[in-house]
């Protein structure tokens, strides 16, 4: 029974961060801020939910292969997500996406003047 409470708490924490990320993704005013908000989903949101699932697979199902596969999924999400975020942020800036309200500090635009 104690393990059930722990799993519930982990899943609720993950869901709260997923909700925060989705709200930021819908409501934020410009493209780069939306990217920042979406990082919440792929870090603590996914990790919380998958950690709950991992505990369920270990202590309730008792299945090693399921647990290992969940660990692989979490590892994949964590390792590959920053590469995509970096690539798309740079691509969006190079393609001319700018916030409506100009940024106060913009060293990238100053140094590469484009």
């Amino acid at each position, binding site marked *: 029974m104690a393990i059930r409470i722990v799993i519930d708490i982990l899943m609720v924490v993950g869901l709260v961060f997923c909700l925060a990320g989705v709200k930021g993704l819908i*409501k934020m005013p410009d493209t780069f801020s939306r*990217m920042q908000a979406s990082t*919440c989903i792929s870090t603590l949101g996914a990790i919380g939910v998958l950690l709950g699932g991992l505990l369920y697979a270990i202590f309730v199902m008792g299945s090693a*292969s399921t647990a290992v596969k969940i*660990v*692989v999924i979490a590892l994949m999400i964590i390792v590959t997500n920053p590469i995509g975020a*970096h690539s798309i942020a740079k691509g969006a800036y190079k393609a001319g996406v700018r916030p409506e309200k100009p940024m106060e500090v913009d060293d*990238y635009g100053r140094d590469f003047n484009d």
Partner: protein
Amino acid sequence: MPKTKIPAVIATFILCMAFWVLITWNFSSQELLAGAVVSLAAALFSARFMIHGKAFWLLNPAKLFGLIYYVLIVFPVELVKANVDMAKRCFGGCKNINPGIVKVPVDLQSEYGQAMLANSITLTPGTITMEVTEEDDQTYYYVHWIDVSAPSGKEAGDAIKGALEKGVRRVFE
């Protein structure tokens, strides 16, 4: 194109084989043989892109301990702090933001260390690394920051990556 070296192939083969075993989780001899063949082919093709320096540097116990300490203690603490901050901003109406792109200096020599630090910065919500440049033997990152509290230079660098850089330096230097 760099040449393929034998230790690099062995290290990449071990990595691919471990991944195969993790995904299939089946220890019959046929599965292991098929995995070994596929891993060897993948290692022969990709070893020269994966490993540029020494292949087995991670077997040094001090560096291994540093890596485990970084992955289990240093990075999750920063991650949770940044996540809570970002969630507050999101639930607080998305108005409390002040975005900007700052240029911060980085004192790391190894290129694996630079890649690891850049990916760690990108993975913490609130900061995204946009470009890595090098001027006069000093590496600079251009970081998009959701709440610019200090202009470019040392203070911004300390606020963005203070603890992370110390942890990475223990692993790679």
